[in-house]
């Protein structure tokens, strides 16, 4: 494949960033917007060309005997640590990176378009587009990484883009602290990632994904059974690397940044905190999947973390009043779904059937569909916020009459996420649940419950916003549908969400490149999960469609639980306690105190002692000649005496 297109895919966004970032101040808004959209449009087209070429061209680089190959379009040395340990910057094409190219550029383009309307009146419009371009560049670089270190590089870059975008409204203290929180939490997670890479690369002496994933057994061998605290070192490495993913993908207990990240502009939430960046953790696990498979403990760990997070986030989502927060927790829950799915895609035959990789395919499938409908939901939420100037559903209600486009697209999104046939979510969720049931009935049952909760809280949101009762404020300020720049992406995404489930995803993405035909297990999985989802929707309909006092009753039934769920089970408070009280208040303060009052004081003490000594001996110079000669004479005598004593 020609390397021009891949290079352009990366080069255009970064150029856009530089142009808009440096020259943006001098540019008009319109020009900046057009530049940004055109740039991203071009990138999207190129990415589509590359991805589609990969999937469909049949080129020998991409597919051999029906097996999709990993192909490094280019891979140049960026920094050589040692002779063997070399960091490259490259472009890897394989089923998942091609998939991600499509996802990222699609959503990004939609968001660019949408933002033109949404951000129209915000100061710093040019800067906003610059940051979006930077993010797109970083995210693209991350997914096409040929080696784990390149991934780490771009991993950090997406982190910082996210920081910049969350803190876009930098005059608001809440935005500033949210961005800071996001960055630091993910940085903390990245520390684990980095240490994981350190350990992994020390033994494998390579960063390259292809080299590691093509022969995971060799990786295991290179570790030579090294252990640390009872677990094998490779397990440690993989768990630590996964920690990085936990941070980015907001898994428990590192999820706390994502809800706060909603302080950013809503399109940003759609792009970064719903569709692309937050799935980087999933992508990372998928990327290293073969290596995870050789140390099953780490994959099990992924499973547990995912299952716990999914349930936790779903419960919390039921008790939020900020619509973006609901969506944020829903995102966490859905990503956790993918994690569990990957964790269940365990490369060992179970009861004689080789199900390996079903979970992998399903997880990726869900990543794809989720990106579409979650972006749709966020953009819809953006339209709502645009209309009523509030994030809380208490300021909404009964909006379906005022905002029909938003209403219908939002409903499609909700149906998709709830997993109702024939919307996209149904297919991917079905495959995931199938994979989980194959692993163990418990995972399937547990996650099916989460799916039910998902349906419930999504429709709770839907009804509270669009039904319930009309908000009295509408009389003063009549809400209306968004302008075309915003509505168009909604419609497109709704269309995609409606139909993308029909894609035979197994043909494109499987863990080993061997195409696989999706078939839906109606009896075992699909119908029960549909029933659960419909139950959830029915409950939501009963509770929230018309204004009634049932929700209050439920709330008062066990107010502590409601309060706890509303406050996200106090995770923020715990973190606050640890960071502010313990780290800042105790560790940092005491170190700073120690520095000033012990170390520095010691240095000052040298000076003080010298001064004191100077005053102490001043009596020697008493001014009396007789004292002088006394010193003189006894000085000489003592000198002789001491030497005499020493010699003896």
């Amino acid at each position, binding site marked *: 494949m020609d390397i021009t297109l891949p290079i352009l895919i990366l080069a255009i966004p970064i150029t856009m960033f530089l142009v808009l970032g440096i020259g943006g*101040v001098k540019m008009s808004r319109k020009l900046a917007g057009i530049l940004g959209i055109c740039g991203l449009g071009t990138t999207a087209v190129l990415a589509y060309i590359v991805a589609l070429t990969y999937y469909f061209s049949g080129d020998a680089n991409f597919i051999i005997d029906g097996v999709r190959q990993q192909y490094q379009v280019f891979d140049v*040395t*960026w*920094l*050589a*640590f*040692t002779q063997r*340990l070399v960091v490259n910057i490259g472009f890897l094409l394989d089923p998942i990176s091609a998939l991600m190219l499509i996802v990222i550029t699609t959503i990004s383009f939609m968001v660019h378009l949408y933002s033109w309307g949404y951000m129209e009146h915000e100061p710093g419009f040019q800067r906003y587009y610059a940051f979006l371009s930077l993010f797109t560049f970083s995210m693209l670089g991350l997914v096409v990484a040929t080696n784990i*270190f390149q991934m780490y*590089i*771009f991993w*950090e*870059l997406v982190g*910082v883009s996210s*920081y910049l975008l969350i*803190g876009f409204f*930098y*005059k*608001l*203290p809440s935005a*500033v*602290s949210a*961005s*800071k929180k996001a*960055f*630091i939490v993910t*940085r*903390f997670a*990245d*520390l684990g990632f*980095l*240490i994981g890479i*350190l*350990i992994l*690369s*020390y033994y494998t002496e390579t960063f390259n994904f292809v080299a590691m994933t093509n022969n995971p057994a060799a990786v295991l061998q290179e570790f030579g059974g090294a252990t640390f605290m009872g677990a094998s070192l490779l397990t440690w490495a993989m768990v630590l690397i996964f920690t990085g993913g936990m941070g980015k993908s907001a898994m428990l207990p590192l999820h706390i940044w994502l809800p706060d990240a909603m302080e950013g502009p809503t399109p940003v939430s759609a792009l970064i905190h719903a569709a692309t960046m937050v799935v980087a953790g999933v992508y990372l696990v998928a990327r290293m999947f073969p290596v995870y498979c050789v140390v099953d403990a780490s994959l099990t760990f992924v499973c547990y973390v995912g299952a716990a997070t999914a349930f936790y986030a779903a419960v919390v989502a039921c008790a939020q009043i900020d619509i973006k927060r609901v969506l944020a927790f829903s995102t966490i829950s859905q990503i956790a779904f993918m994690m569990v799915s990957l964790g269940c895609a365990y490369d060992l035959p179970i009861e004689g059937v080789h199900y390996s990789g079903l979970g992998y395919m399903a997880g990726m499938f869900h990543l794809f569909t989720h990106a579409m409908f979650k972006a749709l939901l966020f953009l819809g939420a953006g339209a709502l916020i645009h209309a009523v100037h509030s994030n809380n559903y208490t300021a909404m209600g009964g909006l379906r009459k005022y905002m029909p486009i938003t209403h219908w697209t939002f409903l499609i999104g909700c149906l998709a996420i709830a997993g109702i046939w024939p919307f996209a979510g149904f297919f991917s969720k079905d495959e995931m649940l199938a994979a989980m049931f194959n692993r163990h009935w418990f995972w399937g049952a547990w996650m099916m419950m989460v799916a039910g909760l998902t349906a419930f809280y999504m429709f709770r949101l839907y009804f509270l916003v669009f039904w319930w009762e009309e908000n009295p404020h509408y009389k003063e300020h009549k809400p209306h549908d968004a302008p075309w720049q915003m509505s168009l992406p909604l419609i497109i995404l709704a269309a995609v969400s409606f139909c993308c489930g029909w894609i035979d995803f197994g043909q494109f993405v499987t863990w080993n490149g061997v195409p696989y035909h999706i078939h839906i297990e109606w009896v075992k999985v699909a119908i029960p999960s549909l029933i659960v989802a419909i139950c959830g929707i029915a409950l939501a309909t009963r509770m929230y469609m018309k204004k009634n006092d049932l929700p209050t009753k439920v709330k008062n039934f066990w107010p502590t639980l409601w309060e706890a769920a509303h406050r996200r089970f106090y995770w923020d408070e715990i973190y606050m306690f640890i960071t502010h009280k313990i*780290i*800042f208040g105790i*560790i*940092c*303060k005491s*170190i*700073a105190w120690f*520095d000033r009052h012990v*170390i*520095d004081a*010691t*240095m*000052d003490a040298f*000076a003080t002692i010298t001064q004191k000594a100077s005053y102490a001996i001043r009596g020697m110079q008493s001014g009396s000649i007789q004292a002088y000669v006394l010193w003189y004479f006894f000085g000489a005598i003592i000198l002789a005496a001491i030497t005499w004593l020493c010699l003896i």
Partner: protein
Amino acid sequence: MFGNILIWFVVIPVIMMAGLGLCRNSSMNAIRSVMVVCSTVLLGLSIWLCCDFLSLRAAGVDDEMLFTGSWMWYAPLNIHLAVGVDGISVLMLMLSSVIVFAGTFASWKISPLPKNFFLWFALLSTGVFGFFISIDIFTMFMFYEVALIPMYLLIGVWGTGRKEYSAMKLTLMLMGGSAFLMLGLLGIYWHSAPEGGQLTWNILEISHNASIDPDWQKMLFCFTFVGFGVLGAMFPFHTWSPDGHACAPTAVSMLHAGVLMKLGGYGCFRIAIFLLPQAANELAWIFIILTGISIVYGAFSACVQTDLKYINAYSSVSHCGMVLFAILMLNTTAMTGAILQMLSHGLMTALFFALIGMIYGRTHTRDIRQMGGLMRIMPYLGVCYMIAGFASLGLPGLSGFVAEMTIFFGSFQDADTFHRIFVIAATCSIVITAVYILRVVGKLLLGPVQDKHHLELTDATWFERLATVTLIVCIAGIGCFPNWINETIQFSFKPIIAAIQGVI
């Protein structure tokens, strides 16, 4: 003698001083033009040297040092003015000239006594350049001290805050370090040749002779390492740094944190480790502990400071600790990382101090509690500050990342638990760094404006922009294309690694 390009690195600052001497005290333009011309020439010279050096290396010249020259000075003690550079020194020279250049512009409006300021400034740069070109430990030490003493006056006269106390403290502590260093150097000299051989101060000859016996090496290693370590802000000898930097005028902080602290790292590397490899091998662990503490300790201390300069000074303690830490790992990759870190820290901390100076010049406070929302008022400076911050916390694409990663990966090559524990502790600093950098950025630049008077302030002027842009370009240059630096310095480690492996 003047045919050697390296000599000009010392001659030009001297010319600079002479030129300044001729200027009248009041004619700011004359003073500025002398400074600008000379610092530009220096910058050009260093770039030229770098190109020349690379082309010679590319042509396969594989001497340890290039452009060597040696002129007898104090014959009875065989003291030479010996010069020579390898890849590391070339880079250090470039760093210094960049920072001198930027520093000139950063102190464009210095007052009072601009002439005297620049005279001492030029003397300081003479010392710095001289240090990096020397390969004779006597001249090296001389230039080292030449670089230290102007600090006293520069801080004392043109500084702010508790300047007298800080200037004195800084000077005395650094001189204390150099007292230890001096003793180490004397010991090296008197053991520099086998019995009956011609004693020498020349680094290359000493390393070839390799005649220092192990017991002496241990003592001398401690002395030299502590001596240079004081300048490298090694725990617990770092306390001059916060006070000194906090009170120093902008350009001086830049040059001091940017270049002078690098003298410490460079010296440890060039003298303590290169000439005393056996002791380095045996005693490295002591200093690994100390530098490991520096890294974490500096970062934690920075978290609770409220004065911008204190924050940056403590962050320097942490970052410079990283330099020494990496050097002590005694392998090529880690040492490469150390050099990269020196460059990176030099540039970014210079940028920081320049920006702090500019902000302080406008707001007249450095207390982050009294400022806020400056990004809206002075967007240019705000953006630059953020870039410096990102470089400091190790954002890919800027120099800090490359340096830190090279250090971590290099240090991790030492496969025993002791080293690993410290490496992992050191990696933790990247999180803490993020914490304090973002804390400052959040309080200083973002959020609502704290003080209404700040709304009337202006953004950067052209000379301030020039100073910052120069530094940012270098930071981004290293961050995006690190490998050429890697290749430039790789060769320089061979003799050192050989010396160390020779004794293992």
